[in-house]
């Protein structure tokens, strides 16, 4: 299975964790990004992710590879959802296991931070008001040039 995956199905957290179990590791760090019920003053009903898979998978694998090299961790994985999602579902999960906790925390942080700015993934928020908006585009348009 690939180290970076896109799925339209709910992420199986038990199975995800299982893939990172390693007897040589004393630390496991997992980050889950959940669907939140509000953003910038608006009540969010659900989210929709559009993913350009060919490039998202390529870029995602590169980020994981960079984290391995930078922090010396062997086991790192990430899964990102596509399509419609309800509140409190995990939109993204990152997991790192390593002999000690320091590099596991650092690598996990690196992967999620890079994923947010480098993957061709777009988030559309559907609000309780019935409106919807692409995240980052509204703000950019206001401050735009």
């Amino acid at each position, binding site marked *: 299975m690939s180290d970076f995956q896109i799925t339209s199905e709910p992420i199986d957290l038990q199975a995800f964790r299982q893939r990172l179990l390693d007897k040589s590791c004393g630390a496991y760090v997992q980050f889950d990004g959940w669907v939140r019920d509000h953003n910038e003053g608006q009540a969010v009903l659900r989210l929709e992710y559009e993913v350009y898979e060919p490039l998202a998978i390529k870029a995602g694998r590169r980020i994981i590879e960079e984290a391995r090299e930078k922090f010396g961790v062997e086991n790192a994985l990430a899964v990102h959802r596509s399509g419609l999602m309800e509140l409190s579902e995990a939109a993204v999960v990152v997991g790192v296991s390593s002999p000690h906790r320091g590099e596991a925390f650092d690598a996990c942080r690196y992967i999620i931070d890079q994923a947010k700015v480098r993957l061709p993934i777009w988030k559309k928020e559907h609000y309780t008001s019935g409106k919807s908006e692409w995240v980052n585009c509204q703000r*950019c348009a206001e401050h735009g040039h």
Partner: protein
Amino acid sequence: MRLTVKYFAAFREATGTASESMETTAATPAALFSECRERHAGLEEYSASLVAINDEMADWEAPLSDGDEVLFFPPVAGG
């Protein structure tokens, strides 16, 4: 030269199309995007937009060649 242009997310909604074939003299993705904005009034310019050529992330000033597939990505928001 003839190119294929693909629009994603907010760009697709603004242009009303996911893909179009264009005859152009634009030398770079930046110049091509300006042409696209002339065709599609709703297409916004964002500083955080990204571009890819033939499924590789590219620079806005990279050279374009006949037959290229140019992908315009509005600001990303994963996670």
